[in-house]
């Protein structure tokens, strides 16, 4: 009985670091740049939350934040689409999540459209 108890304690201890690997792959705070075909890049932040499989979020969380109108993830391709009604025109980010095994270098890379502007973006999970 005592041995079994010790084994249980050891297993619980081992499982603690594993808990860090849970969570939705899109969830979290992302920082990155929108780089238009011509012109200077614009730095923005995304905050995405997951609840029961539903994704919601804000662009530039904090003062003046804009609630996302839609966040959809295709788990087959890890394609993530984010839409937000920014004052410069609706922002649509179409990209792919990569490096999902990393907490420090997870990427969301793709292309964007905002009003008449088009370009590329790259975000890193904070």
């Amino acid at each position: 009985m005592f041995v079994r108890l010790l084994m249980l304690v050891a297993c619980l201890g081992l499982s603690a670091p594993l808990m860090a690997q849970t969570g939705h792959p899109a969830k979290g705070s992302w920082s990155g740049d929108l780089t238009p075909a011509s012109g200077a890049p614009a730095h923005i932040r995304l905050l995405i939350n997951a609840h029961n499989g539903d994704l919601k979020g804000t662009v530039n969380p904090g003062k003046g934040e804009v609630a996302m109108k839609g966040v959809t993830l295709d788990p087959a391709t890890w394609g993530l689409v984010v839409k937000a009604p920014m004052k410069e025109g609706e922002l649509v980010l179409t990209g792919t999540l990569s490096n999902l095994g990393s907490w420090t270098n997870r990427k969301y890379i793709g292309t964007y459209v905002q009003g008449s502007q088009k370009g590329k973006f790259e975000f890193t999970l904070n």
Partner: protein
Amino acid sequence: MNTKIAVIAVATLVGGLTASLQAFAHHSFAAEFDGDKKLDLHGVVTKVDWTNPHTYFYLEVQGKKGLETWALEMGSPNGLMRRGWTKDTLAVGTEVIVAGRQARDGTLKGNAQSVILADTCKRLFAGSSQVDFVEDESAKVEGCTKK
């Protein structure tokens, strides 16, 4: 009997090693930070990790060469709660002014001593472990004007 002892020994070893992982993160102020390297940062919070033995938050700051991301260490979650912090005090996107000390190795890492919420100019002490740092509640809040 020998098997039983071996199992107990292995279980104890594994449990001990696992428990020691958190202890690695605990260190004295002087081992990592330089008391003479003053730090004054104004930026936006991008992440908060309420972990023991130290809470960390990350700040995007406009530096001379571009955007910098600083990692700032505070006291334990329990210590911060006793100083008036809640889990919502530092939401992602909050603009703050931080006073503290920089890491000895010159990286973008610091020990936060006080955090001022830029919107309200409310100052919160961050549970710094610097021995000669005094949390003086009566001291004037500097570097902030209410918006």
